[in-house]
């Protein structure tokens, strides 16, 4: 039905997150119909990003400069180090505009079942970096793996003198108690603070 070139494009597109074979076909068709305004610019953007973007050797973020823009920004606070599981989490933190410290991207979470251990996550490098900080903020997800990883890092940092904190779990901003699940409410109750 379609030529080998288009078939290959569809196959590659279908491996993108959120795209199945059907949406990949639709995307391929959309691109081919807009060759000049979309397909060529996309191809150029892909080639240029593939050539220039790499992992920051300091924090693990993606950028085209080494170290990355966040690591080399002199206005950022060297005393704060935020530990995230992946670059997606770093972007989420950055979108808030509420954090002006440095980052450390683990590139995954501890998982014995998936064979991911502390050495795969470069925890030793994190411990070295943390020695220069006042506070390490653990911003791993609130899943079993995320919390296990946070607990593990906190344990490794215990005794180094650096303060270790974690993101609060509980009532979301604008959230109504009536609509929250029991687990979230009890976590919020445990993490209550004085006003």
């Amino acid at each position, binding site marked *: 039905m379609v030529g080998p070139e288009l078939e290959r494009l569809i196959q590659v597109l279908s491996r993108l997150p959120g795209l199945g074979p059907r949406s990949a076909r639709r995307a391929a068709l959309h691109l081919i119909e807009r060759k000049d305004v979309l397909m060529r610019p996309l191809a150029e953007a892909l080639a240029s990003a593939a050539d220039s973007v790499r992992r920051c050797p300091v924090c693990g973020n993606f950028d085209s400069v080494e170290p990355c823009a966040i690591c080399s920004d002199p206005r950022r606070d060297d005393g704060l180090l935020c530990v995230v599981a992946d670059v997606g989490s770093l972007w989420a933190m950055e979108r808030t505009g509420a954090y002006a410290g440095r980052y450390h991207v683990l590139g995954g979470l501890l998982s014995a079942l998936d064979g991911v*251990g502390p050495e795969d996550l470069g925890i030793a490098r994190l411990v070295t970096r943390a020695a220069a900080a006042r506070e390490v903020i653990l911003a791993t997800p609130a899943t079993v793996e995320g919390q296990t990883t946070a607990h593990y890092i906190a344990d490794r940092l215990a005794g180094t003198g650096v303060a270790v904190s974690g993101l609060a779990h509980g009532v979301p901003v604008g959230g109504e108690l009536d609509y929250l699940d*029991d687990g979230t409410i009890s976590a919020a109750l445990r993490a209550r603070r004085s006003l």
Partner: protein
Amino acid sequence: MTTDPEDAQDASRRLAVRRLTLTDFRCYPFLRLEADPRPVVLTGANGAGKTNLLEALSFLTPGRGMRRATLSEVARREAQDGAPWAVAAVLDGPGGPVEIGTGREPGSERRTVRIGGSPAKARELDGIASALWLTPAMDRLFTEGAGGRRRFLDRLVFGQDHGHAAAAAAYEHAMRERTRLLKAGGGDAAWLTALEDAMARHGATMAAARNAAVARLDAACAEAVGPFPAARLALAGEVEGWTAEGGAAAAEDRLRAALFRARARDEAAGAATIGPHRTDLAVRHAGRDLPAGQCSTGEQKAVLVSIVLAQARVRTALSGLAPLLLLDEVAAHLDATRRAALYDVLSGLNAQSWMTGTDERTFESFGERAQYFRVESATVVKNDFLPTDEHR
């Protein structure tokens, strides 16, 4: 004494399946069944497809259905691997009719759920439909190993506390990780500590939920309902005991310490030797003051019916929504007095019950309080014949 079927559709009927449509589900290429809110009796020979209908209804609630089947197992036998199947139903609930659809879409590995025509998460089903079931496999519940009773227990707890499933899943996950790590030679002590912390937190939450649920159920089972005996329910498990003794926070600390001490033993055993995954549900026949497992087969079945009816009352009191009762071969092992008493109870419930049996005559005391369907080689025909008329 005749009852107008329309009378049975009064406002007190809170949850009922009005229409059930199956596509490529087990033995059914396609089936549509229309029902009124009265109890539904499905009769037919062995292997006709009666239980498959109850199983289809059990998929209107979160989880793997009453046979704990995988998505491929419930697809029609003639279908290829990964073939789609669907169960759709129109339910009359307290808020009016709701359409629920569930199944597997082509090529998907996950169960799809639609509520009112829009995609939804399986757990959202819980606010709309819930179901309790009794199957012949559960006849051995009191005599088999603790695993079956624990699954039965956790389903009852989940029916009362929806957070229980998440806590249990998180606990199991952390436990599997710890076991894997121990098998690999113990690994990093700090990593084990982190996993034991997760097990302790979620394990104590599980134990507290189980204690609360079993206390409610034990109170509801304290009185005999007609010929269905009173039963006493208790939990046999360290963590539940610690929780009852000193609260969930203390139990969490004790479990964390116990797991730490058990590392060498657990490494040798290849599994965690302590924790709520080893808890058992102890049930006693209150009248005879005997463990349920030592009662006769008929008495065991009667105790099981007592527990299921008690759970239906507890659930209704907690959520205001009575669960559908799916009773597979329920008449087996019950004498005529108990059968008649069961049908009286089921006729008075706020939710529809669905029953199967091979012999119409075992349902005759239901009379016109129930509706009857004949199941034959994957077809279902409404049976206007009332067993009472023939056998009077």
